């Protein structure tokens, strides 16, 4: 037995050389979560390419669209426009924030499908704040964003409370609250004087996140101060998780609820705190979309889907602050390339398919690791038997 343990512990060259060479390539990807995510995303794009081929379209159009969305360089016409880069970053902003929302809850062991609803609450409150708060430059927009985050934190916190108090499944509760938020938002927004079935009166300039210098820099794109809010949120996520007692308690609860309880961490409070902070991130996303993209308040006609895509963002980003930031940029790229794909004859829904496949592949990666571990165990067992028989042989010889 000791022999097997030793072999399993050390980077035993014999183990590698004998039967793991074929799997060495896969071992590289399995070594860390980040590398797994890269593999998963590559597989998603590969599958997307195959699907486009299968329906008889040219996948080159997809990659050309992605390149144009990322660099602004249009290969087909040979022109360069930096506005596309600005649009990419602008559309990534809410995705990063909803990803942080999902990721924050996930670290505490909760599955937050409710980012969509929390986003809607943030969006609605921000629109109200823009229309009804006194129009003082800077002050109004800051207040609007803060109120949106606070309102969405309450909306998320409710789920945490229901979970802690009644043990109600957060999955079903958040899904229901998404629809409730959606219909309530329509209801109250249409009640605003001067609103019709799709928009409210224009929002005042003092409530908008527009940043003139960013627009000049990116040739008039939608990029605004919201992007800095997202960057600050990524840092805040990392700081809360890694450097505060709250973050430690949340992570401990997420990893092993019983152990956390036994060591005096209040798991109930963790559920409320984590869902409230998760809600705040999603609310910020809503506020940024409300105050940064349109000059008017919207009466929603359907889900914007930022919340649902945030699930994919968090899964690919492994629910770490910086991972989510990068994954948000990736999914933002997919989203901003949608119209460019459509104009190249590729149905834009291919990006949704790629997102879905990536999530499916993420769920498979536990099994993928299991397979590798099983292979390794099998290889070690073979070695151990061989070694055993050699020892026995040696004893007989002696």
């Amino acid at each position: 037995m000791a022999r097997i343990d030793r072999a399993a512990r050390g980077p035993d060259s014999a183990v590698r050389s004998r039967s793991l060479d074929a799997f060495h390539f896969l071992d590289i990807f399995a070594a860390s979560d980040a590398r797994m995510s890269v593999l998963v995303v590559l597989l998603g794009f590969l599958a997307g390419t195959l699907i486009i081929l299968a329906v008889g379209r040219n996948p080159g159009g997809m990659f050309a669209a992605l390149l144009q969305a990322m660099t602004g360089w249009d290969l087909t016409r040979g022109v360069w426009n930096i506005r596309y880069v600005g649009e990419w970053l602008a559309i990534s902003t809410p995705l990063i924030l909803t990803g942080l929302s999902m990721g924050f809850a996930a670290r505490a062991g909760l599955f937050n499908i409710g980012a969509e609803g929390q986003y809607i609450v943030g969006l609605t409150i921000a629109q109200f704040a823009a229309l009804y708060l006194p129009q003082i430059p800077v002050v109004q927009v800051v207040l609007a964003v803060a109120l949106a985050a606070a309102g969405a934190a309450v909306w998320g916190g409710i789920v945490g409370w229901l979970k802690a108090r009644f043990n109600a499944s957060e999955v079903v509760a958040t899904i229901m609250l998404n629809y409730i938020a959606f219909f309530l938002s329509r209801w109250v927004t249409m009640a605003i004087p001067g609103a019709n079935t799709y928009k409210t009166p224009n929002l005042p300039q003092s409530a908008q996140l527009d940043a003139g210098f960013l627009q000049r820099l990116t040739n008039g794109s939608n990029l605004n101060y919201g992007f800095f809010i997202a960057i600050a949120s990524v840092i805040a996520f990392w700081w809360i998780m890694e450097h505060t007692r709250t973050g430690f308690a949340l992570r401990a609860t997420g990893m092993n609820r019983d152990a956390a309880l036994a060591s005096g961490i209040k798991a109930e409070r963790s559920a409320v705190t984590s869902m409230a902070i998760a809600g705040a991130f999603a609310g910020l996303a809503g506020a940024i979309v409300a105050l940064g993209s349109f000059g008017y308040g919207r009466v929603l006609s359907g889900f914007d889907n930022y919340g649902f895509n945030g699930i994919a963002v968090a899964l690919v980003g492994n629910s770490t602050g910086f991972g989510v930031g990068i994954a948000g940029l990736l999914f933002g790229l997919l989203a901003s390339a949608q119209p460019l794909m459509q104009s190249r004859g590729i149905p834009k829904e291919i990006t949704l398919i790629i997102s879905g496949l990536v999530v499916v592949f993420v769920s498979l990666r536990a099994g993928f690791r299991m397979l590798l571990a099983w292979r390794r165990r099998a290889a070690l067992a073979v070695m151990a038997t061989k070694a055993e028989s050699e020892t026995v042989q040696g004893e007989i010889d002696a």
Partner: protein
Amino acid sequence: MRDVLLVIPSILMMAAPILIAAMGGLVSERSGIVNIALEGLMGIGAFTAATAHYFMEGSLGGASVWVALILAAMAGLTVSLIHAFASVSLGADQVISGTGINLLAIGVPVFLAQIIFKMERTQPFRIGMMPGPGGVYPTAYIALAVVLATWYVLYKRPVGLRLRACGEHPQAAAGAGIDVVAMRYAAVMASGALAGLAGACLVLTQTIQYTQHTINGAGFIALAAVSFGRWTPKGVTGSSILFGTAVALAIYMVNVESLRGLPPEFFSVLPYLITLGTLVAFSGKDWAPRAAGKPFDKGRS
């Protein structure tokens, strides 16, 4: 009173798809696999049925809807294999793989519609399913048959006992010689077929084409109905009919004179509020199959 009688067929029309999908969710959860992909699988079924019916109604006439139902069930079953493979064979997180399918089901139907119909929805079909006597659609009878079959198989056949054992204590079940993996595969595939069928029932009775908003949470409501119904066929039937009634009333009450003052959103939000309320009021893990949501690991005891 006459008004109440008039609303019954539309309650049955709304409740039938929820009920069928919820039975699928019930079977899957009783075997130990949580299937939050019901929503997406219903979408796949609805798209398949709407497309098949559009192309066949000219040539097959009245038989077309029935072929469409079968094709939809097969499509749901096929897609659910992804969930089965991930969660049974590979021990993946069941909520994540279910979410993956739900995301795929947003994209795939519209993608295919763009290829087939050159637009973001299916071409509307001329006539959907025809209601029978009393204005009751055949989907109500399909739902009834599904409920009875589920109850009979789960509680009156040995295979049902084995399936439930896999959801309560898979290690013990495996020890008694039950093939847990095969059982869970069968249960997830059954839930996929039923969810696909449910989506087809919905699209063929309630609308004339598939759009991104066709399912609109019906699968998630079915999922909630399973836990509200405490994982028994009788309970789930009751909760599904309750939710179906809420959805039907939401549509019906908009036209009631005395309630005109209220905005339509008030009625639209009701089913979800009721679902959430009942979830809270009747929550507690005690009723759930003990091993639901946990991957089966042969080596663990």
